[in-house]
């Protein structure tokens, strides 16, 4: 075997099964594989492995598979839901994970989304999101995605959380 040894993927702070307790999303719209850093209510980091077997790549595009930019934005929105869902779980149970998926609200705004490089099957995408000011039920979120050392997407979002589902 030649080349650099592969580094091990970052250790899971939350596994995919644990993420599924925080989010209402399910296949084919459950997009994050692993949470690798988490500060509830403030910030988080996640991994997503893009694979050719993902059904969306069959249509985007035949003969030229690339991961849709809008789904990179959706990954940041789901990571935002992990940030505030884990905060809700922690305040109610003391644990990072609880069945709080019904608190997830809506994506209210996508602002300044930039897509710097395409993402292909085989890429491991690292997402980072930081929660910003909250006002009137809206939460601002800054997000970015990178593959290796290269930034592939940045976006600012506004999302909502349902206090009384």
């Amino acid at each position, binding site marked *: 075997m030649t080349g650099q040894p592969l580094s091990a993927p970052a250790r899971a702070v939350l596994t995919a099964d644990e993420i599924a307790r925080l989010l209402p999303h399910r296949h084919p719209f459950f997009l994050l594989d692993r949470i690798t850093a988490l500060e509830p209510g403030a910030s988080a980091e996640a991994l997503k492995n893009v694979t050719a077997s993902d059904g969306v790549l069959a249509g985007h595009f035949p003969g030229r598979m690339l991961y849709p930019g809008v789904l990179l934005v959706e990954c940041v929105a789901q990571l935002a839901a992990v940030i505030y869902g884990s905060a809700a779980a922690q305040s109610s149970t003391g644990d990072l994970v609880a069945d709080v998926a019904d608190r997830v609200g809506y994506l209210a*705004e996508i602002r300044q989304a930039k897509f710097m490089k395409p993402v292909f099957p085989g890429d491991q995408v690292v997402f980072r999101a930081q929660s910003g*000011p909250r*006002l*009137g*039920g809206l939460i*601002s979120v800054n997000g970015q995605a990178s593959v290796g050392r290269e930034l592939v997407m940045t976006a600012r979002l*506004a999302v909502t959380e349902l206090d009384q589902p």
Partner: protein
Amino acid sequence: MVMTLDEATRRATARQDLCSQVKQLLVDRLSLDVDPQAIGDDQPLFGRGLELDSIDTLELAMAVEDTFGVTVTDDDTQSLLSLNRLVDHIEGARA
């Protein structure tokens, strides 16, 4: 305490400058298709005024924090009703 004419003039000028800065900030950050100088100091920002919505409110709060270092929280939402109230809030927080 009685204010001197010079002091009153200085404060009025500073207030006017701050109003102009906030108007420019509104237009720039919310991509409004209006001349900043056409925004009245008492014009409502929402509804029949500049017709901003709740999502714009969040952006405006972030812009004020970024530019003036002044936070706007759910307890301060009255300060977003008009430009004058917003400028009052910024001046009060900086005092």
